[in-house]
């Protein structure tokens, strides 16, 4: 029976698949609604089980065609797969919400979406101002009874603020100058301090003294890089007896 259902559904699904464009759907609920219409019954009478099959087949086909599926389509597929098994398995007492309840919920959501879609179509089928009926082309205008009327709507105000808030040029940002020892200065300093020291000395002892903790961090970082650079160019020797030991330097 179930296989029959799938075969009934498949041909039409396949036809559409050829020019399947997932971007054309307004989300998984929209896709479900389109599939539901293929059952050609009132949504209130629709078989949720059959619809679940249709959707899962559709998504499987889309994957086969390597169509990019947005995450929410896959989330819906996972949820429907769960719903399907819940509907088919014997009912477990006390399970909340029940499979029937979930199915009913889905059916209601589809009905509500369809109702709104039809409402939109019916709205635009009416006699529209500016298209079917026309307002006075050149009204003379009334002087307002109380004050001069100003042509400014709430939308204007919101839009104006959106424009300002969006412009981002409303504030000047100043980068605070932090005390730093530049790499060049560190190299000069180190070269001078090491001088012609022939004994190994701990790198830290050669650094400029400071009480400013921020400046100190900069000094350590810059001096370390400076020491590496000076060692690379053969201006000093760098040594570390073991992994955690302090770095030592001496003149070449």
């Amino acid at each position, binding site marked *: 029976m179930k296989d029959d259902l799938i075969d009934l559904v498949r041909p039409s699904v396949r036809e559409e698949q050829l020019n399947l464009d997932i971007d054309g759907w307004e989300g998984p609920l929209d896709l479900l609604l389109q599939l539901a219409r293929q059952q050609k019954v009132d949504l209130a009478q629709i078989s949720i089980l059959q619809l679940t099959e249709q959707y899962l087949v559709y998504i499987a086909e889309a994957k086969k065609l390597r169509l990019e599926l947005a995450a929410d389509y896959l989330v819906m597929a996972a949820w429907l797969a769960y719903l399907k098994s819940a509907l088919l398995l014997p009912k477990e007492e006390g399970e909340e919400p029940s499979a029937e309840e979930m199915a009913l*919920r889905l059916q209601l959501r589809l009905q509500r979406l369809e109702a709104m879609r039809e409402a939109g179509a019916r709205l635009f089928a009416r006699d*529209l101002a500016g298209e079917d009926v*026309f307002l006075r082309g050149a009204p003379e205008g009334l002087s307002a*009874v109380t004050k001069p009327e100003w042509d400014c709507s709430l939308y204007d105000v919101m839009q104006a603020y959106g424009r300002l808030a969006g412009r981002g040029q409303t504030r000047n940002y100043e980068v605070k100058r932090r005390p730093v020892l530049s790499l060049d200065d560190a190299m000069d300093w180190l070269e001078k301090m090491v001088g012609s020291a022939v004994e190994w000395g701990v790198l830290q002892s050669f650094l400029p003294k400071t009480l400013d903790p921020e400046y100190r961090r900069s000094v350590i970082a810059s001096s370390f890089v400076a020491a590496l650079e000076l060692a690379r160019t053969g201006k000093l020797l760098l040594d570390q007896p073991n992994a955690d030991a302090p770095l030592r330097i001496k003149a070449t």
Partner: protein
Amino acid sequence: MNETLRIVEAVLFAAEEPLSLDVIGAHLPENAPVKALLVELAESYHPRGINLVERGGKWLFQTAPDLSHILRRETARPRKLSRAAIETLSVIAYHEPVTRAQVEEIRGVSLSKGTLDVLMELGWVRPAGRREVPGRPLLYATTTGFLVHFGLTSRRDLPGIQELKAAGLLDPMAEALELAREEAEQPDMLEDADDQE
């Protein structure tokens, strides 16, 4: 023709937007029966090429709908609204006031940027306060401009709104679920429930 009626006619004719009873009344002698005058005037215009209509409690003249084929201007085709915008508009109109989250729930998809903007720019949708729940989300509702554009006297005239209400399709989901469950369980109760409404 009655002098007061002439004034009502002239005021509405000169106005640049639909007028409320108050604004019309301000031009009339005190205690003039504004509503009755409007109804009388509307009747006298009924057979004409111009009609007097009510939109959301405000009144305006417009051309008779049956002349649309003659008056339609080929040049000024208004831009086509996206499906998302049309659906969003119906959700707002039929459920108002609603939050953005409610629109998204009904449509089953998140609202892309600019959809509400388009509807507000057209003057059909406006912010309408906030819902007093955590986060105080902004509410949206339709405007008189919406009613004018779609030729609706009031929101009660929205196509099919009574049927949708009766079917519970405009209720919050929880209530709709309850209703649907009852109907599913007791199909013969259906008619009784309808009678009660």
